[in-house]
């Protein structure tokens, strides 16, 4: 047996067995599986982006590089065809206005329910989480009915979509702020009060700066969620004019129809979200510079809401 264990006389079979017995061996199979998963999840998207630069009309056979689906033709280019342009503008309009409103309401709500300890705050904390978990279809239907039957002064279209998006997203900042407040604890505010700060002063000069990373991370998240939102925008759109990019892509692909101009539109959506993510990542790292535990992975996790 001792001879077998000697590495010089090892047969391939015993080598394999001893490799399997080694408790600290590298998890090769697991790593290969993970790579396979990553390739499967990312490569189709890369292919779709590449085809938005196809010179031909096909989105499945490559005919050379061109930017004709972005610029150059008033019928086929997404930046020049008025219908495509209107979808791009609608997406940005909805995302920007909804993000601003959501953040104002959500941050105040998060701080309020964390500090105001009462039955009402507990109840509405529950309502807020509930509104987040129900399927978006049911949520969208509730909004569709309320604007067509009760609040009929709000027309379906941009304003209805914004009200829907704000409600749907309010829980992002609220939950993230709530968590951050719980981890900060009362000590800093007490110190500020001991040093003579009033409540409002300590809120403005101590609490808000400490909440900045959380506020920033949730702004980025809410913006990206609004850009990508489909169900609410679809159920609450009134006509083709109020269809954002996501709804436009959906209604054009019914039954599997597509073309490079849709890929170009989707690539733009991807760009908006990825720019938001990049801004979020870099901004988050800048805000938290010098903080303990602030690393690249931590910044990535924060802007994703983990």
């Amino acid at each position, binding site marked *: 047996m001792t001879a077998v264990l000697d590495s010089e006389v090892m047969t391939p079979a015993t080598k394999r067995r001893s490799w399997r017995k080694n*408790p600290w061996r*590298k*998890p090769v199979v697991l*790593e290969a*599986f*993970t790579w396979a*998963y*990553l390739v499967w*999840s990312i490569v189709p*998207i890369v*292919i*779709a982006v590449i085809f938005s630069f196809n010179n031909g009309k*096909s989105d*499945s056979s490559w005919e050379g590089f061109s930017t004709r689906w972005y610029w150059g033709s008033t019928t086929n280019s997404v930046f020049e065809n008025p219908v495509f342009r209107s979808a791009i503008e609608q997406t940005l309009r909805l995302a920007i206005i909804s993000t601003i409103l959501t953040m104002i*309401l959500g941050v*105040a*709500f998060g*701080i*309020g329910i964390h*500090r*105001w*300890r009462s039955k*009402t705050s507990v109840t509405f904390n*529950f*309502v807020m*989480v*509930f*509104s987040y*978990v*129900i*399927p978006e*279809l*049911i949520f969208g*239907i*509730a909004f*569709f*009915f309320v604007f067509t*039957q*009760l609040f009929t002064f709000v027309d379906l279209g941009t304003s209805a979509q914004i009200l829907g998006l704000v*409600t749907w997203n*309010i*829980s992002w900042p609220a*939950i993230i702020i709530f968590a951050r407040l*719980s981890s900060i604890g009362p000590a800093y505010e007490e110190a500020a009060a001991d040093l003579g700060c009033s409540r409002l002063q300590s809120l403005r000069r101590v609490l808000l700066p400490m909440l900045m990373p959380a506020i920033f991370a949730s702004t980025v998240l809410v913006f990206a969620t609004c850009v990508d939102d489909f169900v609410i925008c679809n159920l609450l759109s009134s006509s083709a004019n109020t269809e954002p990019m996501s709804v436009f*892509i*959906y209604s054009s*692909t*019914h039954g*599997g129809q*597509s073309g490079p101009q849709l*890929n170009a539109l*989707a*690539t733009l959506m*991807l760009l908006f*979200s990825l720019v938001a993510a990049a801004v979020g990542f870099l901004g988050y790292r800048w805000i938290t510079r010098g903080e303990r535990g602030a690393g*690249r992975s931590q910044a*990535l996790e924060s802007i*994703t*809401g*983990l």
Partner: protein
Amino acid sequence: MTMTPEKPKVITASPPGKTARQRRISMGWAAFAVPGILWLVFLFIVPMYTIFAVAGGHLNPIFNSPVPVWNPFAWSGANYVAVYHDFVGPTSFIGPILGRTVVYVVIASILSLLIAYPAAYFVARFAGKRKGLFLALMIAPFWISYMMRMLAWIDLLQTNGYINKALVNLHVISAPVNWLGGKSVTVVLGLVYGYIPYLILVLYAGLDRIDQRLIEAGRDLGLSRTQTFVTITLRLSRPAIITGMLITFLPMIGDYFTNQMLSGNVATSMIGNLIDAQLLTTSLQSEGAVLSLFLLVILLVPILYYVWQSRHSEDSVM
């Protein structure tokens, strides 16, 4: 993150009950919450109630449009009866749709878990110095629009798309398959592809939080790799598995766009497609309201479980 506000444990000599100052401070904080509370009342609770009002209402005989009834004591059961007849009786048609929804969602959830768990486990435990890279690649799909991800598969699965070309060249199939013409396989693939990024992130967060020392202790005490995994890692990641499954299961049940984009065929339609279609026809809107309430009631247990969990556990990842 604990969602239950705990009463501050302050030892004071003063008698129990809030002092005037405490009450004033509390009201100050309440002012922050009030706008959000009013918003949720008028733009969440009232809209949800409207579904009930439409479901319990009746049809305008001239315009054939739904007329909501706001007084709960005056609600009629007519729409509920109509939906009941869609379930049982000679004109019923919902049974197969509901069954299909459940089968698709269950298969897609199990597949997602089987794919997501090993990948999340690897990144959380073995990625080492390359963790940042793996994390970025794993998070990327989360940031990419759902529509873009579906469009990518529409490109690949077309009759003359790369999938068919590859399969024909490898002699797996003799002629191109019309994957987008109402195939259950395609719909399930779409659901898995669409929702797996959310699951994998929750699993990663749960697995990453497991104390490595517990695993080392398990090995030191003589457990094999498999035993350590089953008794320590798997057990400790159970809350993350449940949360992750819920967070993908709930939206999958109400999904109608994945199906519509990748199949668009009645042969694969799910409960979401039915509700969506009913909403487009005014005379069927009230039945759509009843069906969405039905869906809400079925999902109430998992929804409440999720809310309860997020209040009682540390990993209330969104």
